[in-house]
């Protein structure tokens, strides 16, 4: 038996979960898919007093595509999002990214809300949310509030959420009009956490870039938005030269860590290549729509 002892509460409703968390105070922790938390329990890197299991809370697992908006319940499993036909049509970058999370057995259990709350800078969901103008709705005994993806991440495995707050829903938006997207990552083996990942959203009007969002995983202690490159592209022609310039700007503006999986220089280089490819793919997707 590897984890240290804890008290276990299987909440049957959100209110029950919130009450149990409020009672537990600092020692409480939400258990969703368990694909990040249970390893931490096994290694005793996490030693909560009370685990509040939200898997039986009904109604938290919906996946709804409404035109250019995507609404995902916190308990939706990665695998359900990956295989959702509507998501595939309207948010192909989300399907592509979800399919890259770990392995099938991980995706069968792991949840979108868990991934967003776990705040691993190498994970797919946080970068996706940044690129898709995302937000999360959280509940606590004080009521509900909405936190934008840009305000959610405070540091390595750390969000700005309070210990008694539960993520209920995750929402993402694509700009209207002619929009192309892409999600690319580099990992040593299928299912490994990516060394670097890139989520790109591009909207074009005429021949000009009207909107660009670029978010990267694996290049900082949080997911990172490449604002310099976004600004460089806004209003520019969506040609190879502008895309190459944006990729160079990303290489300049990021400050990635180095570890056994790749040095900081290597990550910078990979980020540049992936940004160039992701932007080109997003632009070509728009091209195919018109053709």
């Amino acid at each position, binding site marked *: *038996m*590897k*984890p*240290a*002892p*804890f*008290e*276990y509460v*299987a909440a049957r409703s959100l209110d029950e979960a919130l009450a149990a968390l409020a009672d537990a105070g600092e020692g409480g922790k939400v*258990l969703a898919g*368990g*694909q990040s938390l*249970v*390893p931490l*329990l*096994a*290694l005793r890197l996490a030693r909560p007093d009370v*685990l509040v*299991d939200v*898997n039986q809370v009904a109604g938290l697992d919906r996946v709804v595509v409404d035109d250019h908006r995507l609404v995902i319940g916190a308990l939706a499993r990665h*695998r359900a999002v990956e295989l959702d036909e509507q998501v595939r049509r309207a948010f192909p970058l989300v399907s592509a990214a979800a399919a890259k999370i*770990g*392995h*099938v*057995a*991980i995706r*069968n*259990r792991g949840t979108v809300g868990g991934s967003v709350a776990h705040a691993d800078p190498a994970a797919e969901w946080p970068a996706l949310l940044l690129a898709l103008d995302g937000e999360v709705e959280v509940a606590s005994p004080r009521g509900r509030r909405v936190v934008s993806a840009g305000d959610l991440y405070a540091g390595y495995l750390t969000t700005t959420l309070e210990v008694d707050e539960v993520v209920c829903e995750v929402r993402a938006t694509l700009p209207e009009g002619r929009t192309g997207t892409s999600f690319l990552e580099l990992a040593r*083996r*299928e*299912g490994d956490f990516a060394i670097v990942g890139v989520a790109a959203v591009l909207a074009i009007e005429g021949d000009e870039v009207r909107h660009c969002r670029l978010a990267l995983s694996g290049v900082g202690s949080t997911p990172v938005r490449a604002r310099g490159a976004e600004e460089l592209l806004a209003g520019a022609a969506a040609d190879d030269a502008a895309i190459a310039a944006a990729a160079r700007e990303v290489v300049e503006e990021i400050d990635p860590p180095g570890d056994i999986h790749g040095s900081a220089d290597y990550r910078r280089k990979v980020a540049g290549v992936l940004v160039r490819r992701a932007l080109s793919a997003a632009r070509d997707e728009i091209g195919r729509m018109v053709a």
Partner: protein
Amino acid sequence: MSERRTVTVEVNGERRSGSVEPRTTLADFLRDELGLTGTHLGCEHGVCGACTVLLDGRSVRSCLMLAVQADGCSLRTVEGLAAEGGELHPVQEAFSAEHGLQCGFCTPGFLMATLELLSESPQPSEEQIRSHLSGNLCRCTGYHHIVKAVLRAAETMRGDVAASRA
């Protein structure tokens, strides 16, 4: 602080109960409480796939679930594959025939993941097989023979289905 709880599951078609602390993983419950030691534990933190079982038909790592979370669920483990008389399941038969195992430590996990794959995709490509089994590590075979075994099992099982329809 963490009082014991009764967990009741249906394993390989049989109702089984046991009493566990909440911190007991599903893997430890299967092995230590129910005596089903066919499910192996390699890493015990989600990396190797040796502990893969089917929970309501889907592959899960039994080291990453608490036994209490499986209460009321239906499980399938490697012990549920062979027929009563000991006749091997087509997936087991194929692993044996194609040398999809050497020491056999990883095999229960591979068999269960393969079962899920073939129930979703009766005619998987080699790429699909490699992707579906990417979460299972094998130190012996180099995977090549495992892929061949899955292709063979798929063929047998499609034949079985066709034969039963005829």
